[in-house]
């Protein structure tokens, strides 16, 4: 009989687990690779973000062409010459959140690197908000910057993530 009780409890527990996933497909992501000479800022509001509270697993994915620049030509150069969106259409992060840090693999421009960056996860009504700001080195991800414009582009792009994930039913 004891074992049935255990089973029952485990069943209860398991349904409770699967309810602890959070998701958004309208996550905010921005980056800034500008310099005093030129503003190079872009943002998207269509990043996907997921979080599993049980395992601590956290993941992000964004289509490179979804980044909006103020200048159409800059956006074209970004996609055509720098991140090569046709060849590498998306960037993703898969990892874990624990105690104020996210740690995992960031894949961009066909290169995967382990990163560990500070992050803030706050519980809000019906969901969770994830915020993080960190820098990535362009050369780490084989994004080449021609010498002629190297003084206009910050070799370390600042990435800002701000995603409001809703509890999955």
């Amino acid at each position, binding site marked *: 009989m004891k074992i049935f009780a255990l089973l029952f409890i485990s069943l209860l527990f398991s*349904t409770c687990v699967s309810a602890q996933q959070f998701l958004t497909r309208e996550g905010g992501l921005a980056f800034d690779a500008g310099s005093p000479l030129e503003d190079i800022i872009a943002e998207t509001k269509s990043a996907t973000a997921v979080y599993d509270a049980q395992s601590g697993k956290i993941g992000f994915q964004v289509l490179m062409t979804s980044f909006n620049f103020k200048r159409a030509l800059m956006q074209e150069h970004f996609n055509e010459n720098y991140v090569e969106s046709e060849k590498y259409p998306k960037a993703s992060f898969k990892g874990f959140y624990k105690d104020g840090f996210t740690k995992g693999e960031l894949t961009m421009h066909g290169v995967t690197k382990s990163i560990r960056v500070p992050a803030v996860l706050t519980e809000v009504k019906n969901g969770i908000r994830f915020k993080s700001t960190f820098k990535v080195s362009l050369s780490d991800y084989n994004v080449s910057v021609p010498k002629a414009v190297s003084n206009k582009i910050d070799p370390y792009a600042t990435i800002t993530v701000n995603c409001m994930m809703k509890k999955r039913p």
Partner: protein
Amino acid sequence: MKYLAITLCLFISPLGFAQDDVFDLLEVTQNKKYAYATFKGTQLVNSATNETPGAGVLQYIIAHRFGSFGEDYLYNFLGLDNAQIRMQLDYGITDRLNIGIGRSSVLKVVDSFIKFRAIRQSSGPNPIPISITLLSSANYRGERYADGIDHLIADRLSYHHQVIFTRKWNSKLSTLFSPSLVHWNLVPSVGDPNSTYNATLGARYKLTKRMALTGEYSLISNKSYSDGSAFTVPFGVGVDVETGGHVFQFHLSNTRGMSTPYWLSRNSYSALNGGLFLGFNISRVFTLRD
């Protein structure tokens, strides 16, 4: 009893715990995505592409066609001493609508044009395989007529209407097919057609991220007129080089006129008789409004 419980437990537990990997949720269904940068410039060599400057962007193009290889070309420093020039200023009202003015030194032609990206190639849900862009221009010949007759302003005008079909096949290859109509208000005699029909074929192939080969060739409906003037089919091959806000286009063509009716339907040069010209187009963009 105990075994039964364990079996049950084995059965049920996967149901509870084997929730699909949370990362599977990351995979997104592709949204509608418009093809971008089908061509580097708003023109290929002479012919217009589907591209327009973005909203709020002012584009300045300066273009040269040098002297022919047939005329003392070493003496004239590969024709550079006999340059014909075109200046063009155009503006993107929206990302799809573009207006502009230009002035070419061959026959002192001033023109204005309007270009609209009617249909844009896209992928994702309801994909569209090609882009269709509409272009119209009015052209005014400024050069004095040598025939001693007073010509009305209307005589000096010609019009060009074009439908530009383009497709970006992949990141390297894009092609263009543009049927067009050129209307001349003045033709040599009553028997000559005022309207000529043309079709331009063009392509670009990217060699590197910032460099591409281009080529274009046009078919024309009317090659000779009653006054004995004969016209040839225009073609050009070139190289596009892009550096930040500039696009440099260097090319070799059998045309010198740069306003559309003149290079397209009244080109009098033939490559076989040395009528080949080096030339370039350089564009610079200025963002006036973010």
